[in-house]
């Protein structure tokens, strides 16, 4: 094999995973939880009491664990996708100095958001 001077493949891998997740799953999640339910297309009363308690809340079941793992996968990769694009976006807009600092900040923010999501999904919600 060969050696390269960088870990970029790791970050790019997360970025591409996020690109797929955002494209495949965020539209429908936004449609359901941002537009259909608040917009009244799905009755909120039946929704709150039946659906999300079943899918996310107690009692724990295989079904709600699957939903939690799914949401965790989508959101965490979304954050790392953002981190990757955002650091290049700043570069594109003229922030050419301190690239390493920008990288640390962006990926740390993504990691923090990922941990927060895990805690919310698996401990609180």
């Amino acid at each position, binding site marked *: *094999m*060969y050696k*390269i001077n*960088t870990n*970029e*493949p790791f970050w790019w891998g997360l970025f*591409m995973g996020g690109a797929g997740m955002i494209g495949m799953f965020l539209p429908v999640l936004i449609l359901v939880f941002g537009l259909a339910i608040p917009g009244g297309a799905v009755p909120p009363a039946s929704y709150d009491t039946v659906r999300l308690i079943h899918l996310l809340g107690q009692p724990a079941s295989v079904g709600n664990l699957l939903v939690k793992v799914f949401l965790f996968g989508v959101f965490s990769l979304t954050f790392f996708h953002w981190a990757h694009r955002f650091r290049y976006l700043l570069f*594109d807009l003229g922030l050419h100095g301190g690239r390493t600092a920008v990288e640390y900040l962006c990926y740390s923010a993504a990691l923090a958001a990922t941990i927060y999501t895990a805690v919310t999904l698996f401990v609180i919600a």
Partner: protein
Amino acid sequence: MTESTIKLAVTRYRPGQDREPTVQTYTVPYHDDWVVLDALQYVKDNIDGTLSFRWSCHMGVCGSCGMMVDGTPKLTCAAFLRESYPREVRVEPLANFPVVRDLIVDIDDFMHKLSEVKPYIIREDLDSLPLGLGHELRQTPAELEDFKQFGMCINCMLCYSACPVYAMEPKFLGPAAIALAHRYNMDSRDQGRNQRMPVIGSSEGIWECTFVGECSVVCPKHVDPAAAIQRTKLATTNDWFKSMLMPWGNR
């Protein structure tokens, strides 16, 4: 008899004389079968012999006549005046390169990068290969298909000129060099991939690219360097994860 004419707004830069480039406007005859290079040659022959520009084949093969035409990198031997007429044509040296004089840019950086990616077939077994008639390294048409498109590059550097990443980070290896590395990596006869990957997979190689995609838009030979770069990112990432997960699998 009144002949129709067209104005050429040409960038002039004479080192040792000009502090910065200036624009000089020439009026030349207009023919709808003339390309920008014809008009420049008319200027040099009939109006101003000091105007400097590079060209050779006049038929889209040599790749030496690239310039900015109305702000877009083009081969001037393939850019017709009629695309601008009756407006004036703006002719500038290729963007993102240091200007040597007038419309001539310094191509050393690209030449150096090109040689770094070893754009030729590498064989580990060259000494033991019985080369000669009847001993060719054979290839099927399907295997040729894997890289043919990326081998069409004429080194015109229009893609570098269109690339904002190269403009901001001159160390970036750039579209054509990576496309040519990919061309040899995809060649069934080649064994040099492990020598090229550390160069194109480095932090100054493919990872600078953010897939703006303009290189593939301006390429006169439909090489699609953007595709070569994205595919190399994918391949490098596969290799990287494999070597992390299975450090013992050394092949």
